[in-house]
C-alpha cells in the first residue's frame, strides 16, 4: 500500500492543465464551458460499436485517460441509451447490428444527439469507400439513423473526437 501511495504522490496530476495554454487545452476548456452553458449539467454519452474494427474504440477509450480526462470535463459514458444525451456510433453499421442500433436510438431520450465516428461510420475517404454498403453492411451510420455530426479519421484522434462532441452540443 505504501508503494501505491508513493506512486500516486510521485505521479501527481498529469491531466493536461495550464500552462501551457495550447490548442488542446483551449479546446478542452471550451468544451466544458459549452457543455455547461448549453445543457447546464453533465453530458452523458452511450457509445455504440455498430461494426468497427475497434480502432475507433481504442481512441474513445483514450478520452478517459488522464491526459484527456473527459469525465473531469462534465462528460460521462453511460451504460444504457436511456441514460444518454448522445450516441457516439462507430461503423460501418453491419446488417447484424442494424436492428440493435435502431433500438438503441429509439431508447435514447432528447436531445438524442448522434455523432458518427471514423471514416467507416461517416462513409468518407478511401477507407469509408472500402467499407461501403455490401451484403453485410449498411455503410455509414447516417444510412441507418439520423446523424448530427461526423468525425472522420481512421481512427480519429482523441482531440478530434472531443471537437465532434462539442460540435454536436452546439447544434442544439
Amino acid at each position, binding site marked *: 500500500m505504501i*508503494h501505491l501511495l508513493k506512486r500516486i504522490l510521485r505521479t501527481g496530476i498529469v491531466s493536461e492543465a495550464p500552462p501551457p495554454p495550447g490548442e488542446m487545452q483551449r479546446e478542452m476548456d471550451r468544451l466544458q464551458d459549452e457543455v455547461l452553458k448549453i445543457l447546464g449539467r453533465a453530458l452523458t454519452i452511450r457509445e455504440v460499436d455498430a*461494426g468497427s474494427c475497434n*480502432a475507433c474504440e481504442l481512441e*474513445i*477509450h*483514450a478520452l478517459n485517460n488522464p491526459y484527456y480526462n473527459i469525465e473531469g470535463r462534465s462528460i460521462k459514458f453511460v451504460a444504457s441509451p436511456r441514460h444518454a444525451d448522445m450516441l457516439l456510433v462507430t461503423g460501418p453499421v*453491419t446488417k447484424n447490428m442494424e436492428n*440493435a442500433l435502431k433500438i438503441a436510438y429509439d431508447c435514447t431520450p432528447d436531445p438524442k444527439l448522434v455523432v458518427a465516428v471514423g471514416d467507416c461510420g461517416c462513409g468518407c475517404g478511401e477507407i469509408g469507400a472500402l467499407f461501403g454498403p455490401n*451484403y453485410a*453492411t449498411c455503410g455509414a451510420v447516417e444510412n441507418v439513423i439520423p446523424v448530427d455530426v461526423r468525425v472522420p479519421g481512421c481512427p480519429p484522434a482523441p482531440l478530434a473526437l472531443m471537437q465532434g462532441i462539442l460540435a454536436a452540443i452546439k447544434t442544439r
Partner: protein
Amino acid sequence: MYLFDDVPINFTPQPGPGAPLWQGRTNDSEELKDVAAAVHLAGGRIAALWGSDCRAEGKGFRIDCVFGLNEGHVCVRLDLPEDAPAYPDLSGIFPAANRMQRATRDLVGIATTGGPNGGDVRPWLRHGAWPADWYPLRHDAGNHDGFSNEPSDYDFVPMGGEGAHEIPVGPIHAGIIEPGHFRFSVIGERVLRLEQRLGYQHKGIEQRAIGADIVTGAKLVGRVSGDSTCAFAWAYAAAVEAACAIEPSPRALALRAVMLERERVANHLGDLAMLGNDAALSFGLSQFFRLKEDWVRLSAEFFGHRFMMDRIVPGGVAIDLDARALAAIVAQCEAIDREVGELRAIYDEHAGLQDRYLTTGIIDTALARELSLTGMAARATGMILDGRVYRQGYTPPAPYAELGVRPATDERGDVAARAAVRFDEVFESLRLLRLLAAGMPAGETRREVAPVAGGNGVGVIEGWRGEVVVGVRLDAAGRLARMHPHDPSWQAWPALEHAVLKDIVPDFPLINKSFNLSYAGQDI
C-alpha cells in the same frame, strides 16, 4: 517431404523468410481427416480453416486448413467438386473447428459430413441478413445489398432444472466495447454454462478482398482487428511475398518487428489498465492508461499513426526510422520499463486485486491444447508456445531468430496468470525493442512486388493476442482471388466459455478482460 508416418502426403516447404510452413494437398476427404488425426496425435492444433470457390478458374471448390505443429505450420488443401461440395467435420478431433466450419458454410456454401451428433448445422456469421441459399464468397454472388434483413432466432443449448435461469447479455454491452451476445445459464450467481453468439461485426471483408489489388488488400487486412493491425498487415505481407517469391530486406523485417513489439506493448499496457479497473483499482487504470498514451503518442510522432496502420506493406514497410527516432524509442523503453516495474510491485502486493485474480477463470494446459488455444492465454496455462521463440525442432522467422526471445509463461491458468504473462511480455518486448534499435540493419525499406499470377501463400505472425494467420491466393491478373484473415480469437472464444464455469457472474467482466478477445477479428 513426408511429415506424418501414416499419411502419404508430400509436403513442400514455403520459401522465404517467414515462419516455417509446409504446403500439401490431400487427395480425398478421408486423407484430410487422417492429417487432422495425425496432427492431433502429434500434439498439434488447428490454426485456421477456410473455403474457396474456384469455379471461375474452371475448377471446383476448395478447403484450406492450417494446422500448427511443433516444427511449424502445415497448410493442407482439399479440392472439392462443383456439385454439392462437402468435407468431413473435423470438430470431433479439434473442437475449435466448429465455428470455422459453420462460417465456411455460411459464406461459401461448403457443407461438412458426419461429425458429433450429426454436426452443428446452426449458422454462425449469417444472422438473417442474407438468405440461406445465397453465399457471399461464391464467384457469382455479386455485391448484393438489397436483401431484407430479418434477424433470425438462434438455438442456444438450453439448461434445465430447478432454479436454473438465463441471463442474456448483448449484443450492445455496457461499456465502450465491441458487440456480441453472451447467454449465461446460472443457478444463483454461479455460472453453469456460457454460450456465445458472435458475428455482429461481420462486414464481409473477405468478399471485399476478392478482385482487389494487393495494396488495397493490405488496407483491408489492417482493419480486420484495429488493435492487431500490425500483426495482420505483417501476416498478409508475408503471404503475398511468399506468393510472389520476393523477400523483404533485413531492415524492413527489423522495422516490422519494431512495430509488432510496439503493438504488443501498447495492448498489454491497455489491458493491464483495464484489469486494474475491473477489479476496482482505478489507480491502475489511470497509471497504465497514462503510459499507453505516452506510448501511442511516440508512435504518432515517428510512425505517423498512433496504431501504425498501413505502415507494414507487401514488399517491406512504408516508413523509416532515423537515428533520432531510434534513440527516442530506446529512451522511452527505459522509462516505461522502470514505471511498469514499479506498477507491477503495486499490483502484486495489492490484496484486493490478487483476491479477485487468483483462481478466477482457470483454464488448464490440457484444455488449452484440446481447444487449440494459442498466444498469451495459452502461455498463461504453462505452454511454451510462441512463434518468436526457439524450441527444439523450430526456428523462429527473421528477425526473431537472432534476438533470442525469452518466452513468458505461467502455469496457474487464471486471471493472475494472464496478468503476469502480460507483465513479463511487456518487459521482454521492451528488451527486444532496444536490441532491434541497437542492431538496426542498413539498407532499403521496401522492394517492388510484382504479382505472380496464380500465386499462393500463407503468413503466420505471433501477434499480441496469439497466432495470426493470413492465406492469400492470386488470380490470373495478379489480383486477390481469395484472402482469408484468421484471428486467434476464433480458438480463444470457446476457451472463455470454459473459463467462467464455476465462477460467479460478477467475475465474468474480469475474466473476459483477462482474455480481451477480438469480436471484429472473429466476425470479419
